[in-house]
């Protein structure tokens, strides 16, 4: 199983995500620099990490979304590779058009950095299959621009198609319909603001994120 983590200038969760990928897949992911124009053809899983790519210039994720490597990520996603965007990675995925909507400044204006209660809305996706539908889990968040926005028609479509993977179970950032993570229409791209890679080891205090990474691996193995 081949995985990769994209690294932009200003990414700061890339190494945490690499540790999570390695723990789940059993092999080290390739770290891919933002100027690279190609990914390995047989790549199975791509992580777009959190951080402050390009210093959040213009809009969070805007510059990263136009970097050369993101075209390669889009091609890989088209081929069916799994793409997981976390925090700034979610912003990059919406800015690049791989996921609908946009992430606005938090409604309260504050940077929110704490554990938050989440509900697993769709437990049948390739990313969430090891959770129960409606299960209450806790992941940390750390973001300033996590307020998910899309027009009502898009929100209705996401809900109707089971593409809301995770929802906040408490007030966090003003997100439309409390959306914390969404899937693309093919179900192989997930973007989420909370950080599952920060809760995968007993030493982290919680391990709720472990099953996300294990589930991805099981999904990939089942497909192979």
């Amino acid at each position, binding site marked *: 199983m081949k995985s990769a983590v994209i690294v932009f200038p200003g990414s700061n969760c890339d190494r945490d995500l690499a540790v999570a990928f390695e723990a789940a897949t059993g092999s080290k992911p390739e770290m891919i620099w933002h100027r690279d124009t190609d990914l390995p053809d047989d790549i199975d899983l791509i992580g777009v990490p959190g951080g402050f790519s390009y210093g959040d210039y213009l809009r969070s994720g805007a510059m990263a979304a*136009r970097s050369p490597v993101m075209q390669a990520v889009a091609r890989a996603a088209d081929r069916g590779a799994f793409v997981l965007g976390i925090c700034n990675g979610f912003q990059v995925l919406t*800015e690049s058009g791989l996921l609908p*909507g*946009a992430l*606005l*400044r*938090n409604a309260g*204006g504050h940077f929110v950095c704490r554990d938050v209660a989440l509900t697993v809305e769709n437990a049948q996706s390739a990313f969430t299959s090891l959770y129960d539908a409606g299960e209450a889990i806790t992941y940390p968040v750390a973001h300033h621009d996590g307020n998910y*926005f899309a027009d009502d028609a898009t929100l209705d479509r996401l809900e109707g198609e089971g593409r809301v993977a995770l929802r906040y179970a408490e007030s966090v950032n003003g997100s439309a319909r409390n959306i914390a993570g969404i899937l693309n229409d093919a179900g192989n791209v997930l973007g989420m603001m909370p950080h599952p890679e920060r809760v995968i080891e007993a030493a982290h205090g919680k391990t709720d994120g472990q099953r996300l990474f294990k589930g991805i691996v099981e999904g990939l193995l089942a497909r192979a």
Partner: protein
Amino acid sequence: MKASIFVTLKGGVLDPQGRAIQHALSGLGFDGVNDVRAGKLIELDLADGTSDEDIDAMCRKLLANTVIENYRIEKVA
């Protein structure tokens, strides 16, 4: 040739920055500020002859996120 691009949040999109500015104005004693919306001004210094279509494409592809923002192009000779 120069062009000024004004990027503003669409009507229904929440603007916490605008709201904070409004509160600050009110704190300075400026009453009667009903609403504040903050945007961006991006100034482009362009090669002569850059087409309107190209400037528009720059706005759509990068300078504005049309999911949440509107843009207005003002060309300066």
